[in-house]
């Protein structure tokens, strides 16, 4: 059993114990009153109410705990690098509903990034450089950089200002060419 699951179990046990305590105390008070006044209708109503509310609370708690356990399991798997599992059968209402959807969305984003990165790396490895966003821009800045370098007839310290500086955009372009853009890589593929 993982740490997160045992935390969830402890949490579940704590809530169940509190609910049981309330049910036992409420029922005991009602039963005690009924023994003294068996014909008192309000005490009967009170007893039914306590038992009914306890049952409702128990069912609600079970539902929440089930979702919490699923969140625990999915987080546990994700922490071990397993990004596939998701939380399904999420109830329409509840305190943990939004958290469960957000966890799913987070995993969706991470999994998509991983899958797309694998695709891009694989294709580059196979010699398919189509993932380059704008190769013509890269070529233009390469030319600019080399022209600046060749025209620069100064000593080495001065060469830095007159020739290396024009190459900074080129380096940026090269970096952009080899790394896919964030978000939708496909939207910028072939130019």
């Amino acid at each position, binding site marked *: 059993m993982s740490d997160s699951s045992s935390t969830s179990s402890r949490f579940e046990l704590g809530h169940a114990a509190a609910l049981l305590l309330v049910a036992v105390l409420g029922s005991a008070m009602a039963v005690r009153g009924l023994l003294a006044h068996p014909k008192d209708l309000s005490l009967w109503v009170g007893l039914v109410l306590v038992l009914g509310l306890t049952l409702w609370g128990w069912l609600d708690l079970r539902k929440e705990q089930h979702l919490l356990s699923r969140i625990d399991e999915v987080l546990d798997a994700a922490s071990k690098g397993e990004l596939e599992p998701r939380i399904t059968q999420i109830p329409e209402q509840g305190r943990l509903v939004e958290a469960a959807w957000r966890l*799913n969305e987070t995993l969706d984003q991470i999994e998509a990034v991983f*899958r797309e990165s694998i695709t891009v790396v694989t294709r580059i490895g196979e010699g398919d450089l189509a993932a380059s966003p704008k190769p013509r821009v890269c070529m233009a800045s390469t030319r600019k950089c080399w022209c600046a370098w060749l025209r620069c007839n100064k000593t080495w310290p001065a060469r830095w200002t007159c020739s290396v500086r024009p190459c900074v955009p080129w380096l940026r372009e090269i970096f952009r060419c080899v790394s896919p853009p964030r978000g939708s890589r496909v939207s910028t593929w072939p130019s």
Partner: protein
Amino acid sequence: MARQTIQPIDKERVMRDGDFIVSKTDLKGRITYANKIFKEFSGFTENEFLGKQHNLVRHPDMPRCVFKLLWEHIQNGQEIFAFVKNICKDGGYYWVWANVTPSMDAQGNVLGYYSVRRKPNPKAIPHVAALYRQLLQIEQTAGSRDAIEASRAHLLQLLNQQGVSYERFILDLQSL
């Protein structure tokens, strides 16, 4: 609820820029997971789509050969891109730019499929819609048995004429 009972209506839902529809299926194409935006666009509840075939959201305007191509790719462990017109529960539709990849275990066995759908390039939609209309017409003319082969042959012929692969053609359209 069944796909056949949905009457298509001319009501388009357009994906927003950051929208990101995700769904997972098992090897037989039964939905095992779909995210909140899928629920929002399709109009189905989670209980309505879990365990159902993904063609639950297939629009009748979609030619069958596109899905045939898609299944061939992913069953071979390859990813595929496609423009897909999906139907909503109310009969409306929404276009998506779909990317489907197989999910594999450590040994490379395909366990299921993972699909991400993003907003398609609006400039590409008229071209794609025209192509799909053409393919659909060919399928209807060819009859149910030869439909897929006929439209597929036409699609391959078009690609050959342009000298591009299916993937390059689709990626170029998305980059218009």
